[in-house]
């Protein structure tokens, strides 16, 4: 063998081995999330900081990240990906309860229980959040940002009208009367094209008329939806409709349009949740925004609202490197990033221990909104529309529209909910709160 051939042989071997070593060292991670820079999940700036740190600590990991719109776009994309057998390693989406049950049943999700043990996730999450993300005694998702619903109001208009924060049902009706008299929309409300806003208000009202246990019972299908507390909740909402508490034509109004009614001073308030705190606090003039939770209606049922995780991190059952995927989830949810999520992302992570708001540089109204809601976490009802099966979601959205629009009787709506729950049960998609075994 001539020296030239020997040299070429060594060169080829070197190239092959270096390639093999490099391939062995480099890792690939595909992530789909919904962290945009505006709108409902506007924690994009926070995630950029966290990802920069991740990349620095994991130089051999090539991350392919795709960002989808929050709400249905990410969920549709994920469901198509899962059923087609080609899903990302990690994804951040929002079906819990029945949705998670369906995914886990079909074997789409990786059991995260060993990673929860390894990384101590059990100590970071409250029980209610764990229960929503377990199936058959195993944890299948890491629930992340906290969703709570309350009323954002224009404190300047309230002062001008001589209104105080309502403390009773009569106060709510009085607020509507005073605001209408002065030419304001009392509560800006949109319930189209999806009816999720009405579904959320319905859940809030069940929390006030029936409490957490009633919410759990109807969600688990252990009782009919057509029960007095649920009927009462809908009647209360209808009473508010009759008192002109809501935007005219709310069933044809879109979410952004109702928020605009608050921003432009046409409405005294909007009844929505934490997911738009970034947009609302950014669009209201300084010193005009404050929040309160709807008051208790009955003496024996404490003040409460609805809550859930905004979305949760999942690992696909066939992830190329499950350990790396779990390490990624642990990294982005690590407590050291709490200030980044809260101050730069306006997303408040679900935490077992109460958050000390005094150490964070955020508007006081943000701290107030989360502090009150988290204090009530043992009383709050799980959000109906993120917990029931998809077929029930449609009946819920359209049914609340029909009831509030006066075209569908409460009885027909609730019977329809029972029928859809029966279909969901046939499909094995009724939520059963999980317990750690």
């Amino acid at each position: 063998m001539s020296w030239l051939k020997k040299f070429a042989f060594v060169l080829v071997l070197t190239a092959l081995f270096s390639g093999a070593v490099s391939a062995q060292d480099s890792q690939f991670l595909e992530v789909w999330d919904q962290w945009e820079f505006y709108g409902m999940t506007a924690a994009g700036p926070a995630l950029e900081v966290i990802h920069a740190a991740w990349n620095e600590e994991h130089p051999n990991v090539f991350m392919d990240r795709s960002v989808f719109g929050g709400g249905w776009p990410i969920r549709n994309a994920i469901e198509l990906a899962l059923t087609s057998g080609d899903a990302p390693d990690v994804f951040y989406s929002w079906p819990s309860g029945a949705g998670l049950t369906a995914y886990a049943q079909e074997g789409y999700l990786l059991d995260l229980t060993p990673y929860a043990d390894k990384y101590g996730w059990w100590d970071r999450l409250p029980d209610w959040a764990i229960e929503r993300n377990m199936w058959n005694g195993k944890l299948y998702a890491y629930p992340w940002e906290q969703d709570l619903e309350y009323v954002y109001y224009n404190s300047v208009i309230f002062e001008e009208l001589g209104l105080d924060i309502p403390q009773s049902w009569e106060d709510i009706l009085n607020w509507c009367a005073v605001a209408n008299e002065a030419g304001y929309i009392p509560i800006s409300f949109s319930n189209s094209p999806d009816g999720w806003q009405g579904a959320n208000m319905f859940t809030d009202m069940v929390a006030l008329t029936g409490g957490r246990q009633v919410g759990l019972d109807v969600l688990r299908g252990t009782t009919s939806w057509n029960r007095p507390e649920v009927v009462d909740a809908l009647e209360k909402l209808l009473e508010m409709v009759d008192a002109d508490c809501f935007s005219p034509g709310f069933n044809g109004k879109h979410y952004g349009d109702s928020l605009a009614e608050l921003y432009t001073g046409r409405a005294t308030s909007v009844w929505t949740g934490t997911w738009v705190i970034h947009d609302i606090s950014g669009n209201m003039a300084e010193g005009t925004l404050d929040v309160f939770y709807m008051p208790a209606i009955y003496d024996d049922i404490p003040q409460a609202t609805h809550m859930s995780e905004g979305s949760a991190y999942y690992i696909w059952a066939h992830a190329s490197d499950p350990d790396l995927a779990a390490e990624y989830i642990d990294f982005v949810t690590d407590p050291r990033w709490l200030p980044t999520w809260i101050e730069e992302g306006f997303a408040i992570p679900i935490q077992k221990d109460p958050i000390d708001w005094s150490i964070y540089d955020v508007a006081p109204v943000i701290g107030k909104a989360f502090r009150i809601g988290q204090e009530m976490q043992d009383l709050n009802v799980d959000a109906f529309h993120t917990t029931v099966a998809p077929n029930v979601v449609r009946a819920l959205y359209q049914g609340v529209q029909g009831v509030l629009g006066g075209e569908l009787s409460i009885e027909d709506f609730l019977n329809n909910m029972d029928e859809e729950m029966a279909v969901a049960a046939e499909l094995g998609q009724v939520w059963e709160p999980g317990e750690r075994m």
Partner: protein
Amino acid sequence: MREAPWKDAAMPRFNVRPYIFIAPALIYLGIWIFYPIINALVLSFFDSPTGRSRDYFWVGLGNYIKLFQDDLFIKSLYHNILWVLLSIALPVVLGLLLAVLLAGRGRTRLFYASVYFIPQTVAAVCAAIVWRWIYDPSIGPLNHFLEAVGLSGRPWLADESIVLIAVNMIGSWSYYGFCVLIFMAGLQNISPELYDAAKIDGAGALQQFIYVTIPLLRNAIIFVLVYTIIGSMKFFDLIFVATNGGPNEASTVVGLRIYWHSMREGRFNYAATMSTILTVVILVLSVVVIRQIVTDDEGV
């Protein structure tokens, strides 16, 4: 020396060339039209608790039986039929009248036709968003206008009794310009002498329209009607953005149900059953319209 029999001029010779020319179109149609239709038909005879093909099991006509017991599907189909009728009643009829009115306007007719066509160039999603604002009960210009002239405004997209008509108006606004253009093209092919002859026979404007224009526009009318029926039966985007079928399913159509069952519930087989029925309904309606007009023509 005898000629080989296959070289006999009387024997038809297989000519491969035409098949080569139509092959690209056939392949395209096969992949994007025929295969999905056949696949949807096959899927409709199966069901799956998971949405995955490996879990399919045979249910025969089970999905079809379930479908015709599904009140929401019947309601959606009814809305589609209404949508067809509304789309014929307004944009098609209006388009025909405008085209006839423009026919005698010389060069300015092209200008008007272009103006009428502009809404057609606006994406349905954008049109839905803009019209949502126009319809808004509190800030929308439509209610402001109605109130200014002494009429009361309505919650156009929130009132179940009128929402389908309100959304159809958006579609009609987009579509009528297209109808004007097609009818104008058809009118250009009608010889002016026919109108002169009709005038000599004492026909007025209305009689000329009925006895000259309509029969000679037959092909354009067939095209527009069939195109409208197909488009209306599979309508989706505008309604999806404007109301998503609400409130309380008052504007839901079959296309939305198919989307919901497949994309949101993962019930692909049930959605495929709806698609199959929708395809059949479109075919039947189209054939009925074409046959009716062709038969009338032969009768004449």
